């Protein structure tokens, strides 16, 4: 009766997770991306994926690597931003990179722990001018149906007011909890609760026929963006995100260039890592040293390339646009 278990050969699932047609589409979109930047005089660069430091963001989990031939631990990068900013400080001018990035713990329909980012930096542009450029690139890459209507831009605060009748900056925590409802995980802090509201209560209602930008995030979610007062005089982070076809595609910043403020944010993240019982990570002293010599006024953005391919291919799972997804790798 155990003929299945005793079978001499068992099929090893070796085949790609993407179809040949999707791989062709992926190659086509990569070529169009390179041509877009070549046409605008943006230099393609490649920076190391193995670095001595990594971002301390409590919600990002770097993959640590030990080499036999190197005496310090290294980290696979969660994005190429730290190294690219050092190139900018060294006077590179506008640069872009099509980079593999690695984030532990991120597996799902829209996430693969190893994925591809198109990340670029534009000296002289602010977040709004960079949104224009993101829109231009996505117009080159995405199917027409996903951009049939003109793109919309929402201030984070206005979006929450419009969709949930709540002020994410001004309303008390209790009010946000009421709006989140009983299915929200208990005990969420303010920023985590806002993340829940955005991903679970707002994002599912986003239109699928236009690009939608959200900008001016709460100051507490500024990450590596500079702060500025919004139209109502409250401090906001000059960050933006963009959605198309229900997928969050990109995260952009009017970059913080101040080394003192940058160090303070790294240290705050490290304290928060400790509070949450996460491993400490080394602070990127090389980046801070680079910022101290002067950093060009610039904006930068990271675009999830695999998700762009998903939208172009009509794929429901990220594995369909990767030659081999993590469970096939």
């Amino acid at each position, binding site marked *: 009766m155990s003929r299945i278990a005793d079978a001499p050969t068992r099929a090893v699932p070796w085949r790609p997770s993407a179809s040949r047609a999707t791989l062709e589409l992926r190659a086509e979109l990569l070529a169009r991306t390179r041509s877009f930047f070549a046409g605008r005089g943006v230099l393609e660069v490649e920076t190391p994926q193995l670095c001595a430091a990594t971002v301390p*963001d409590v*919600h990002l989990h770097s993959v640590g690597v030990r080499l036999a031939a190197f005496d310090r631990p290294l980290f696979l990068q969660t994005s190429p931003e730290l190294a690219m900013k050092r190139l900018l400080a060294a006077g590179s001018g506008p640069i872009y990179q099509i980079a593999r990035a690695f984030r532990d*713990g*991120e*597996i*799902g*329909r*829209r*996430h693969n722990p190893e994925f591809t980012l198109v990340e670029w930096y534009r000296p002289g542009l602010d977040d709004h001018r960079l949104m224009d450029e993101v829109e231009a690139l996505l117009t080159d890459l995405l199917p027409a149906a996903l951009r049939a209507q003109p793109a919309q831009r929402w201030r984070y605060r206005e979006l929450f007011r419009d969709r949930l009748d709540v002020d994410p900056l001004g309303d008390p925590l209790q009010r946000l909890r009421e709006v989140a409802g009983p*299915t*929200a*995980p208990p005990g*969420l802090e303010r*920023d*985590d609760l*806002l*993340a*829940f509201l*955005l*991903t*679970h209560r707002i994002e599912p209602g986003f239109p699928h026929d236009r690009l939608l930008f959200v900008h001016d*995030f709460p100051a507490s*979610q500024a*990450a590596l963006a500079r702060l500025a007062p919004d139209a109502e005089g409250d401090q906001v982070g000059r*960050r933006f*995100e963009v959605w198309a076809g229900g997928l*969050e595609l*990109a*995260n952009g910043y009017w970059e913080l260039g101040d080394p003192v403020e940058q160090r303070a944010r790294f240290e705050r993240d490290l304290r928060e890592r400790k509070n*949450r019982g996460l491993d400490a990570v080394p602070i990127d002293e090389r980046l801070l040293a680079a910022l101290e010599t002067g950093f060009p006024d610039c904006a930068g953005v990271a675009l999830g390339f695999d998700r762009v391919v998903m939208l172009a291919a009509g794929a429901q799972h990220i594995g369909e646009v990767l030659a081999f997804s993590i469970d096939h790798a």
Partner: protein
Amino acid sequence: MASYGMNQLKNGLKLLIDSEPHVVVDLDFVKPGKGQAFTRARVRNLLTGRVTEKTYKASDSVEGADVVDTSMQYLYSDGTEWYFMNPESYEQIGADQAAMGGAELWILEQDVCNVTLWNGQPIQVTPPNFVELTVTRTDPGVRGDTSSGGNKPATLETGAVVKVPLFIQTGEKLRIDTRTGEYVSRAKE
């Protein structure tokens, strides 16, 4: 019972949620561009069959439920409980109407069923996918139009009523798919 971190959740895993056993039927990972990640799980309550959605933070953990599937032989019923025996240990156990969930319509003594136990108690009985049962009563076939694939009700020896083709007679043994409750064919002798 073990507890599971979000990275350990898988479809089919049995979890204790709000003090009741559930099985994971679908999982998704949800994360904003920056900030807190969530795991969204669709879970089926093994007592009620109801499917609900649960959202967890990346750092949450969930208690596992002691739920096991066992093959057991159906012995008899006293009208309120249906008794099953573990063929290896000869241990006997009674399942109530809720756990039977309609399985009693398809099984005869000696049939081997899948009995789902939670903390050792039966919560669900699943009959074999196909059973063979004898027709105890059905009207004689109506002459005439058989090409239209007409059918009629037939009562089986377990009391179940199924739709059968017009040519089936009382006393015949039929093959039934218990998942749909539908007639498949005459049983092959």
